[in-house]
């Protein structure tokens, strides 16, 4: 706030001084010389302008003109600059009187009054344009910043959180594995720590490399394979160009987990999780196919939340450039499909 006040006074003082100097310069250019009194008069004139605009600023702030819509603001500004023009014209008279070049016949000549008033009105109009433009841009950037922070907060809330059920089940299997297969249990601890690290740090970055996400998905499925053993089968078909893409962290993992939680884990005999990516028209196509059957309407809210969060995350990050679908492919498989646009499409939002 203090910084703003200082900026205002610097601009006011500097601006009006420049105005006075320009007037002096014009006189010099026209006559080759200028009297001390004339210089003093022009400085006084500038000082009067400063006072009037300061009063004007006081009034417009009191009346909150900065928040007026254009159709109401323009007439108000036009009327006030004319009033200020007239005011200044007459405020100048005592000054010229004091300095001794007041001539009644000239000062009260209608044509003089009109030209003088018009000149000052124009000056004040320019002042207004500058003032309102400055505030308009300031507010615009503020609202942009605000919007960006709102989006960030929202994304943080939506970011994929690891399911505690998964973590504790994984720890439980790992503990049993320590006796049975120590080497495999060490590997499982690494996999779990990769996933935990990712979920703890991913909120700080908007997006992650596809390859990193794929590694997390593989770690995740590795852990679930320990739990489900022969009941979980996995398949990957990854297009080589997929690594050029950035994806929201833990998004694919969440959807794979969803497929396990609502698909495989509900089936006595277990089933298949298949992750396929293709690149079509510059976009990354991610397909997750899992055994199971989705019963519409009866799915419980917790699952619905996962899907809803994913949809919302995609919308916040990519706008309408991405797409999401989940549906029964047939009686035995559920297909989840996401389309991720190329990187440059959202760089502007994230950087």
């Amino acid at each position, binding site marked *: 706030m203090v910084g703003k006040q200082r900026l205002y006074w610097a601009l006011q003082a500097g601006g009006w001084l420049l105005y006075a100097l320009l007037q002096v310069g014009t006189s010099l250019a026209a006559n080759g010389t200028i009297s001390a009194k004339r210089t003093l008069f022009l400085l006084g004139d500038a000082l009067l302008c400063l006072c009037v605009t300061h009063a004007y600023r006081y009034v417009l702030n009191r009346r909150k003109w900065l928040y007026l819509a254009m159709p109401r603001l323009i007439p108000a500004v036009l009327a006030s600059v004319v009033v200020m023009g007239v005011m200044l014209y007459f405020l100048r008279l005592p000054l010229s009187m004091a300095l001794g070049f007041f001539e009644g016949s000239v000062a009260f000549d209608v044509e003089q009054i009109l030209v003088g008033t018009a000149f000052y009105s124009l000056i004040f109009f320019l002042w207004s344009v500058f003032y309102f433009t400055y505030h308009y841009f300031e507010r615009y950037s503020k609202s942009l910043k605000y919007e960006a922070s709102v989006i960030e907060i929202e994304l943080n809330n939506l970011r994929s959180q690891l399911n505690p059920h998964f*973590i504790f089940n994984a720890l439980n299997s790992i*503990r*049993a594995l320590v006796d049975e297969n120590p080497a495999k249990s060490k590997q499982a601890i690494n996999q779990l720590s990769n996933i935990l690290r990712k979920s703890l740090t991913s909120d700080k970055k908007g997006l992650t490399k596809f390859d990193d996400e794929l590694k997390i998905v593989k770690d995740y499925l590795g852990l679930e394979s320990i739990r489900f053993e022969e009941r979980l089968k996995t398949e990957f078909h990854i297009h080589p160009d997929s690594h050029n893409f950035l994806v929201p962290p833990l998004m694919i993992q969440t959807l794979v987990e969803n497929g396990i939680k609502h698909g495989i884990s*509900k*089936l006595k005999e277990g089933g298949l999780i298949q992750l396929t990516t293709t690149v079509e028209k510059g976009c990354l196509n991610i397909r997750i196919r899992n055994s199971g059957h989705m019963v519409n309407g009866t799915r419980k809210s917790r699952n619905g939340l996962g899907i809803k969060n994913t949809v919302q995350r995609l919308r916040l990050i990519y706008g309408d450039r991405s797409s999401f679908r989940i549906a029964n492919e047939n009686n035995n498989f559920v297909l989840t499909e996401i389309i991720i646009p190329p990187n440059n499409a959202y760089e502007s939002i994230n950087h």
Partner: protein
Amino acid sequence: MRALIIDDERLARKELAKLLEEHPSIEIVGEAVNADEAYQMINDLNPDLLFLDIQMPDKTGFQLLEMLDSVPLVVFTTAYDEFALKAFEVNALDYLLKPIQAERLAETVAKLAERERARSAGTREGEKKLGLKDQVFVKDGDRCWFVSLSNVRMFESDGNYIKVYFDNNRPMIHKSLNALDEKLDERAFFRASRKHIVNLSWVEGIEPWFNGGLMVKLRGGDKVEVSRRQAAKFKDMMSL
């Protein structure tokens, strides 16, 4: 105590069995990988105790309990299931969070021994019918109870359901009164009419009623009419 472990994950079963090696009072008589298998094994082996995972494919642990007439002691094992556990009335519940900790398991085993002593005070050997020492599992919407039959004042049929009266609750179970009547020990429970079965230990007073029937007053204030057909039988039972 003869225990059955029910969990769909092999490693989870193995880990629990290993932890239970420390507790010779608990003998593992079997392991089941899903609710249907468990149901079969419970009927065949008649265990005293179930270690029961809640989340299982096809049918959950709760659904298994609903299938059972008489429910052995139950210890739930779950990784993280606050919703499911909140459904329980605190007194009836014991649960172990996975990964299971040895000390926590020891506490549970101690508690179980105490409960089992209280339960086995009555004779259950060779008896198939449900007596006052048995407990049933009742689930009504989101709430669950393990109810000892000694606390049940009466059963009332309501369409395809039975209302179970105990404490201040009267949840419904999906069963027919006739089927239930066959399973209940006739020395403890009496079929008062087409609509009611009463717990004889709750009877407080008996009054003559119209048409040769009787009106039975239960502790707590509930009144049940005994039909004429059953009244004679009832008098027989209540008199020495």
